[in-house]
């Protein structure tokens, strides 16, 4: 049942969102965002899955199947795998942006508490 995977992705997303809403530690907020990001990878890879399918590689299809047959349902969805592939790399770079901002905030304000980071104060 692939629905279990979908619901796990929802659960992961919600854990990340809960961290985002209830915590004020900037590192934990970045971790929550990463968790939400990871949940979308799980969701997309699960969405690409087809029952009894093979990897979307057209060289040497399994015995009794042709490349034409592969295109009609016996193969995992390559478009969603493409999304995942690029999203992982972008995710690393974006997390690095978050973390560098967090380091600068910690150096400037001497705190990681988002409540205390208020530029307009004193």
């Amino acid at each position: 049942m692939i629905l279990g995977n979908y619901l796990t992705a929802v659960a992961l997303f919600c854990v990340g969102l809960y961290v985002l809403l209830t915590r004020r530690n900037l590192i934990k907020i970045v971790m929550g965002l990463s968790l939400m990001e990871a949940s979308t990878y799980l969701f997309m890879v699960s969405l690409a899955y087809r029952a009894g399918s093979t990897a979307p590689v057209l060289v040497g299809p399994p015995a009794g199947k042709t490349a034409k047959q592969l295109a009609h349902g016996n193969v995992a969805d390559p478009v969603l795998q493409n999304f995942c592939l690029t999203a992982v790399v972008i995710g690393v770079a974006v997390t690095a942006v978050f973390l560098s901002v967090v380091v600068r905030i910690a150096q400037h304000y001497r705190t990681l508490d988002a409540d205390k980071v208020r530029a307009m104060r004193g």
Partner: protein
Amino acid sequence: MTRTSLRERSAVSHAAAREATECEPRHRPWLGALLVAGVAAALGVAMAGMPREHATLPLIARYALEIAIPRWKLTEPVNEIVYGTRGFDTFGETFLLLAAVVSVVVITRPREPRRGYFGESAAGTREQQQYDPDPASDAAEQEARSAERREQGEQAPSGEPVETPDATPLGTPAPETAEAMTVVVRNAIRVVLPILAVAGLYLVAWGFSPGGGFPGGAVILGVLLLVYASYGRRKISKVIRPGLIEPLELAGAGLIIMTEFLGLAFKGSFSANWLPLAPVLTPLSGGVAQLFSAAELIEVGTGLTIVVFALLGMSHDWARDDQGEPRGGGPKR
């Protein structure tokens, strides 16, 4: 044991327990839980309507699978989609990556050496007199400044610098001051590195099998990080220097722009294939997809390297924490 010392010990252990466990406050957990439950319910309903494992493939996936061999001579539809059918999307994502790299470089930029005097200290004399008439530096400030100079390599650290921990006997207490790791780790990584590097390049060169520029670039970053971890910063700083990898990154971006726009020039459509196609199952079989993939290897490999090493190289802030204020006090004055 007297009663007082017992009480002291229990106080100490309580403090230790407080330190060990999380004492961070949660803000409005009930409201957060309510909102999250709402989101979870909405997403759960949405998920129930998503295509399951017995659904037919979407139209674009079937289209990509059907044209992969006739039009691109690629046996790997994922590569065909990344660099062919959805090339425009990858093109946009490349510049998203580039934007993230530029932001990290700008945010983590270290203090730059002065290039000249332009009168700013004289301009602020009146305000300096008004607010801080005695700017003599105290001991803490001098300590922070000397630590900063030491980190930037302007001044030799106190004591002999230790390059490897090979001569250090086992069980020597921390801190470990050596830059590199032990001879065991160094030799293991020396054996593994060429294999990993070749595997990364193989992923890109054999574009008709799973792989491509994105995973290849990530493998290259892994190789460089292994060198960093085992041999230390000084060894790798000859290769990982902004003057070398930032132009490389931009050259990769330039190559991607050129690859895609030449399709517009030669074939009348952006990201169209303008290279002759080699036979199936050869390294050049993807035509322009392979060129795009190789350019993406440069772009992703150098981009992620710049980002990660910029974070690793962020210099410390050596100023002391304010003693009087509780932890997490206000902004530094």
